[in-house]
């Protein structure tokens, strides 16, 4: 800049230049902390886990095209989740369910009571970098899901997986998981593929900042028992969905998460099967 050629000879101009340069550097720092290029640590502070109480709600609607026309079903589950650090692994948060209520237009009273009883003291575990942690013992059959309701799978779909290193807004990360499935018509493997994105940073009030995360996912079922695979193929074997979550960057806690998932019935067997899930989880205390 031409002004510098004579700056050393004029003390007033020298001070002005220094003031301008300092101001430019300060502005650069401010711009950087506004998210352009600044990396955020998307992590959870487990030390407060015992104070977390969430409401988890799942709504399922489905329909079936039958001989006599279209039949519809719906089911809703609402349960409280109380957090705690897992006794088995300090890197895992365990939530214990309580106060579960089930509503449905087709399950009878005994079946709804059975699901509520099974959910009355259930544990759902979550690792920030693994997502929902399913039962480790693959030899156990998921008895809860036999005609009942597998809350673990709803939980898997609504919980985001966080990146292991600090990331900038716009960053993406993927995750692929497989689950053994044991059904009445043979065994299968569920393939879940999730693609996450750190969308933005929001400021709430004066001091709270949240990271907004979204993701897309697909879920594909692969029958593995050759003698029964043809039976399972009567049902649609793929579904897709999307989710979003808000993470409190100040308190380092998950504030809320939502997911929707749908299956449409393109199968060689049963016609017109539609299945939609809507899952919501919210920190209430």
């Amino acid at each position, binding site marked *: 800049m031409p002004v510098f050629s004579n700056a050393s000879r004029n003390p007033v101009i020298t001070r002005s230049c220094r003031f301008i340069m300092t101001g430019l550097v300060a502005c650069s720092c401010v711009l950087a902390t506004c998210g352009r290029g600044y990396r955020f640590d998307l992590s959870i502070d487990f030390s407060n886990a015992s104070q977390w109480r969430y409401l988890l709600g799942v709504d399922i609607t*489905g329909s*079936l*095209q*039958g*001989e006599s026309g279209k*039949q*519809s*079903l719906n*089911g809703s589950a609402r349960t409280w989740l109380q957090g705690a650090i897992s006794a088995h692994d300090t890197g895992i948060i365990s939530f214990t369910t309580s106060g579960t209520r089930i509503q449905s237009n*087709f*399950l*009878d*009273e*005994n*079946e709804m*009571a*059975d699901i509520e*009883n*099974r959910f*009355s003291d259930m544990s759902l575990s979550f690792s920030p970098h693994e997502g929902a942690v399913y039962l480790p013992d693959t030899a156990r*059959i*998921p*008895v809860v*899901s*036999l*005609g*009942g*309701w*597998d809350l673990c*799978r709803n939980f898997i779909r609504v919980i985001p997986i966080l990146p292991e290193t600090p990331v900038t807004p716009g960053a993406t990360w993927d995750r692929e998981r497989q689950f053994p*499935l*044991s*059904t*009445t*018509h*043979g065994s*299968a493997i*569920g393939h879940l593929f999730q693609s996450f994105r750190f969308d933005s940073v929001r400021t709430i009030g004066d001091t709270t900042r949240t990271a907004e995360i979204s993701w897309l996912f697909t*879920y594909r*079922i692969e029958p593995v028992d050759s003698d*029964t695979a043809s*039976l*399972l193929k*009567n*049902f649609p*074997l793929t*579904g897709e969905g999307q989710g979003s979550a808000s993470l409190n960057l100040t308190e380092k806690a998950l504030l809320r998460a939502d997911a929707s*998932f749908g*299956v449409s019935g393109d199968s060689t*067997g*049963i*016609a017109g*099967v539609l*299945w939609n*899930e809507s899952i919501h989880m919210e920190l209430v205390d």
Partner: protein
Amino acid sequence: MAMAFDNIAINSAKTGYGPRCMFFQIVLVAIIALLQESFAKEPVSVTIYSDTVIATDVEIPFGASWTIKPGVRILFEGYRAFLVRGLLIAEGTAEKPIIFSAVDRASGSREKPSWKGMEIVGKQAHGKFRHCRFEGAFRNLVWESSPEFTLCEFAGNHYGLYCMRKATPHIKACRFARNSYGIAADFASPLLLDNIITSNAVGVYLQLSSKALLGRNTITGNTTDIKEEEAFGENKSSLSLQYMWKVMQQLY
């Protein structure tokens, strides 16, 4: 350590429901269950001689065997399951039947189910039940196994016996009454002989690709004696919403 737990006997004073006795048996059953898990590689043999309250889910692991003696009442406190992956022998007599029910549930009660049920799970699981009474369970489940039920009673359950995943239980001279479903079969083939299935909402419920081998059974006096659902056959549009829910929950 394995030797110390062979032939564990559970006994109590013949006065029966003394609180100290029942507490002892509850604690002992819990300890046994915990130790079976800890020493999973060591086979454990347990014999139950008298009334026992079970206040936690119990599992007989693969390789372990439990025997329940005639006249014993196994009573569940809370919504509990009795999971059998090993061997369970429960052979009562006509004078001293073995009872599986819930604490404070009167015999013949029509209240809603009070415990989850007996679950016999896996190809290597086995059970021999004679003169046993199963009451007040949500579902007594047979999954992929072939236990034997002879001269048994199933009353006041939601599912008296629910057979799944190629299970072939032998059910002989048993009585199913006042259940929502007497016997349900989902991709299973229970062998039924000389049974009385009456006063149930549904006597026998055959779901998709199930075959019950029926011979000389009395299936009468139910709201629906036999209900079949065969959407995987010629009529693919006869699938019920209930069955769609079950399969979709298992898959998704």
